[in-house]
């Protein structure tokens, strides 16, 4: 399963992308609970909510699941997933 966290926006508007490829059994055991803990269905309602000026936008993918969240909604299990991907994933600069 591939997990991708794409952060766009911010006053600098520089997109950063962190990716994790959870292939081995150990990786899946580590990442699946983090992914499963996130309220993906609830996030659909948040994707079009107005963002505050200059705040980051996060587009998160895990396998077939997708969510787009304003910075201030990245809390609880989302925060844990995003921070883990930032800390352990490989980073690339995103295309705008």
């Amino acid at each position, binding site marked *: 399963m591939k997990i991708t966290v794409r952060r766009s926006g911010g006053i600098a*508007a520089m997109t950063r992308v962190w990716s994790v490829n959870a292939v081995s059994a150990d990786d899946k055991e580590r990442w699946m609970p983090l992914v499963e803990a996130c309220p993906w269905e609830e996030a659909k309602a948040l994707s079009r909510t107005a963002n505050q000026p200059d705040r980051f936008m996060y587009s998160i993918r895990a396998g077939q699941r997708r969510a787009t969240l304003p910075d201030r909604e990245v809390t609880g299990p989302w925060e844990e997933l995003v921070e883990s991907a930032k800390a352990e994933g490989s980073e690339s600069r995103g295309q705008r």
Partner: protein
Amino acid sequence: MLRRLATRPEPRLRAIARAAKESLLHIKGLQAARALPVPAPPPSARQAKPGPPQRTIFDAASTETLPGTLVRKEGMPPVGDAAADEAYDGLGDTHTLYADVFERNSIDGAGLKLDATVHFGKLYDNAFWDGHQMVFGDGDGEIFQRFTRSLSVIGHELAHGVTQYTAGLAYRNQAGALNESMSDVFGVLVEQYARKQSASEANWLIGEGLFTDAVQGAALRSLKAPGTAYDDDVLGKDPQPDSMDSYVRTTADNGGVHINSGIPNRAFYLVASELGGNAWEAPGHIWYGTLTSGSLPAACTFGKFARTTIATAEELFGSGSPEHDAVLKAWETVKVKV
């Protein structure tokens, strides 16, 4: 009558013309205030002359909890923390521009207290306006230094507040890019007014000094030459277009609000460059008059905004005036259809 007086070119009538322009702007400000998208302050407060700023700086101590611990209030001496003292001074410079040049009493026009939080989050690479206050991160130290280092960034954030209390431009697509452009325009005006720099002396940059030495770049954005602020092996190249020919369609960044803002940003620079002198004078009054005209819809397009700047220039300076012509020419150069 005020409009006629405002356009009088005779030197002996200069003071009267200036007073007429100021009265027109005041009227427009009041009209805009009636169309506020947020609860309006009482009329008595709205009409008040600009008072001194009421600043309060808080420290989030690397958490994301707002506002944090109070570290400096209005009138207190510097506390020795660079971020807190830069934020305090930057709030003061921003308040001064609006009070001196536009006779605006703080962000809401009614003396809103100016709050800012510094040291927000861990290695937080951003600064933002949360609808009530300003928030500054310390940067990651690898790409960005602390965000209070740039006065244009402080002016940028507070201008989001002014837009919120006036035109209420939606933060998405072209309206969002206009919202961003308003912040860049008034952000550079805060810096230029504080430094007393004319249009030709100013750097026209947003966020000069934010990058670490490791980054190949001068700043986050350039109003003078969008797309040239940085070109770095790791960060890539500044993605801003400088005309509608290279308008960027994207879903990222709320529809490219920080990207396509390059187009109206350059239009403002072109007006200031064409007219010469200080950008906060005629160009600033045309843009401020447009923002507070009450005629910009929340979902404003570049075309609607451009037409409103043209109408404002005509109203303040007269049809066929150098100011009116400069605005027409600027939009033509950036290829926004009016």
